[in-house]
């Protein structure tokens, strides 16, 4: 018998075709299992960066999910994740379109909270180091760090999981009642059910409330460097030269465990629903199924923990600011926004489950879901840069609903692995460079600092310009760091 010749045919890589000034597409003709196109918001440089990792392949995989409508969207900061790319948005039609934990991510309701003050930076420059030092002492940061002061018993934890931030405000006097008006969903997803959260998840999370965690989480003291839209900035309470605080963290070990637990469940039951997925991390079930509803309720509970976590951190930060800078340094909440969630929303296609992984809502002025105070301008959107680079404040537009299911990016997106970043950046040198620029840094190790170097991320100004030019959100202000507590 003639020897068989094995021919390896490489899997074709998806290529983006430009279909708009800031919109690219992989059409459904690329692969027979695609139900909708894969579309990304980008410019030429960002599109080229996306082609270097497998984020486009992942977005194509997302486009095969049962019930997906319109398109699988990639935001300009899109990069490779697990299952879904980070910066991915997908909407599935209810009742039987799927829900996929991979479309939300492990860090459920990782998100960002921005607070402003009436303090002029120029008047407190010499006290910023003290502020940052106190913040680093008041907010446990780093892997496995727990909160000694705020370890909840089971009953308290269940209250938080079910009731969200309103529980912290009304029962424990943490934060201010007016904060609730300035949080996405009022700091509470009402369909949460703590009984859908396992004991393992609760064991991981019960003493982690008010902690920063590690990785790319941070507290950043900033100054408003430039205002692009004076009317919107005024509505948000943002003024040039004033000190602000940005908090980036999520649901810690509890959220991770919820995702892990439910991925395992769906991996087992998925075949019973006749579902196959091209990547096992996309494990999913019909939204209306018992498992789908169970996950959705557990995800909401973890999301409430995430809101609560940022809320407690903000409470501590408020105490630090007034202690060090005086009573005029009271911090006012601009907004708290989630960037890893799924929500049921009404769009042109009908009622859909919108998965946002490393993506946030960007609702316009017409939306009844945004705070009354912002109905003239739109929902605040925050796009943090890396350490040493700017963060941006934008507001969502009404057009975003048709463009991206009212979704926007969440940051600059990683461009380098942690190892590559450490290879190229000397942490101690970076620390000195940041300090030479007047940025106070608190980070446990120089190696961790190097992992989060600006070089490791895409150009946030470019990402923001794409969002603005695409019409998803409008630029309002640019904030620059003056102090960083790295998680």
């Amino acid at each position, binding site marked *: 018998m003639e020897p068989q010749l094995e021919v390896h045919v490489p899997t074709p890589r998806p290529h983006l075709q430009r279909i708009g000034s800031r919109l690219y597409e992989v059409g459904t003709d690329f692969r027979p299992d695609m139900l909708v196109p894969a579309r990304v918001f980008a410019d030429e440089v960002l599109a080229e960066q996306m082609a270097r*990792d497998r984020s486009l392949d992942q977005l194509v995989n997302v486009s095969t999910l049962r019930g997906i409508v319109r398109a699988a969207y990639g935001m300009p900061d899109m*990069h*490779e*994740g*697990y*299952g879904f790319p*980070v910066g991915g948005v997908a909407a599935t039609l209810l009742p039987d379109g799927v829900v996929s934990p*991979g479309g939300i991510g*492990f*860090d459920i309701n990782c998100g960002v909270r921005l607070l402003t003050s009436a303090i002029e930076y120029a008047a407190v420059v010499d006290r910023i180091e003290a502020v940052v030092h106190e913040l680093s002492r008041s907010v446990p940061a*780093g*892997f*496995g760090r727990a909160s000694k002061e705020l370890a909840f018993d089971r009953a308290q934890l269940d209250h938080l999981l079910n009731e969200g931030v309103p529980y912290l405000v009304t029962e424990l006097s943490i934060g201010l009642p007016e904060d609730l008006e300035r949080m996405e969903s009022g700091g509470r997803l009402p369909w949460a059910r703590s009984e859908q959260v396992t004991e*393992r998840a609760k*064991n*991981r999370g019960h003493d982690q409330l008010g902690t920063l*965690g*590690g*990785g790319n989480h941070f507290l950043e003291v900033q100054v408003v460097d430039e205002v692009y839209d004076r009317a919107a900035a005024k509505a948000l309470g943002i003024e040039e030269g004033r000190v602000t605080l940005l908090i980036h963290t999520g649901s810690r*070990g509890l959220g*991770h*465990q919820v*995702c*892990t637990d439910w*991925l*395992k469940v769906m*991996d*087992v039951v998925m075949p019973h629903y006749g579902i196959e997925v091209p*990547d*096992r*991390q996309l*494990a999913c079930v019909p939204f209306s199924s018992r498992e789908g509803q169970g996950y959705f309720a557990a995800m909401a509970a973890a999301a409430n923990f995430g809101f609560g976590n940022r809320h407690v951190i903000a409470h501590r930060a408020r105490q630090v600011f007034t202690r060090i800078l005086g009573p005029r340094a009271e911090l006012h909440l601009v907004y708290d926004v989630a960037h890893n969630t799924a929500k049921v929303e009404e769009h042109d296609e009908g009622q859909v489950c919108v998965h946002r992984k490393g993506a946030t809502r960007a609702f316009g002025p017409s939306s009844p879901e945004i705070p009354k105070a912002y109905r003239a301008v739109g929902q605040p959107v925050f796009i943090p840069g890396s350490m040493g680079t700017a963060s941006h404040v934008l507001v969502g537009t009404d057009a975003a609903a048709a463009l991206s299911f009212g979704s926007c990016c969440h940051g600059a997106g*990683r*461009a*380098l*692995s*942690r*190892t*590559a970043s450490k290879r190229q950046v000397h942490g101690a040198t970076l620390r000195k460079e940041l300090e030479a620029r007047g940025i106070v840094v608190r980070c446990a190790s120089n*190696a961790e600092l190097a992992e989060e170097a600006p070089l490791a991320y895409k150009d946030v100004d470019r990402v923001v310009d794409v969002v603005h030019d695409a019409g998803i959100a409008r630029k309002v202000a640019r904030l620059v760091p003056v102090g960083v507590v790295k998680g």
Partner: protein
Amino acid sequence: MHEAAHHFDEHTGEVRVHLQAPDLPGLYREAGRALAELMAPGASCEGGEGATIEVEGRDREALLVALVDELIYRVDTTGQVFPALEIEAADGGRLRARIHGCVPREFKTAVKAATFHDLHVEEGAEGFSARLVLDV
């Protein structure tokens, strides 16, 4: 035959672990060793506290993820790492292991979850190999 070994691939935002071992129990043991090395290199737990764990998975891949997830859970809740595992049983979708842990001097990498992404366990002439992506 494969000697038990592992190495890590760098990637944006994650770590990909490559494992190899002469047999399946050895592969699971190597996964534990790799996780401990990633989280706290050089941690030695000789004579460390012991515990028995049991996990389930519908196939070898799911069992590998379940094992690593169990270890991550124990790291997060006890502050210990577990570089040494004795696999007592691994069949029929269940794995039972004896683990020995200790508190390391410091943690280097925070591993938060094992993923199903790009997951692969393969048997070949030289033994078993596997690929596993960890969320860090």
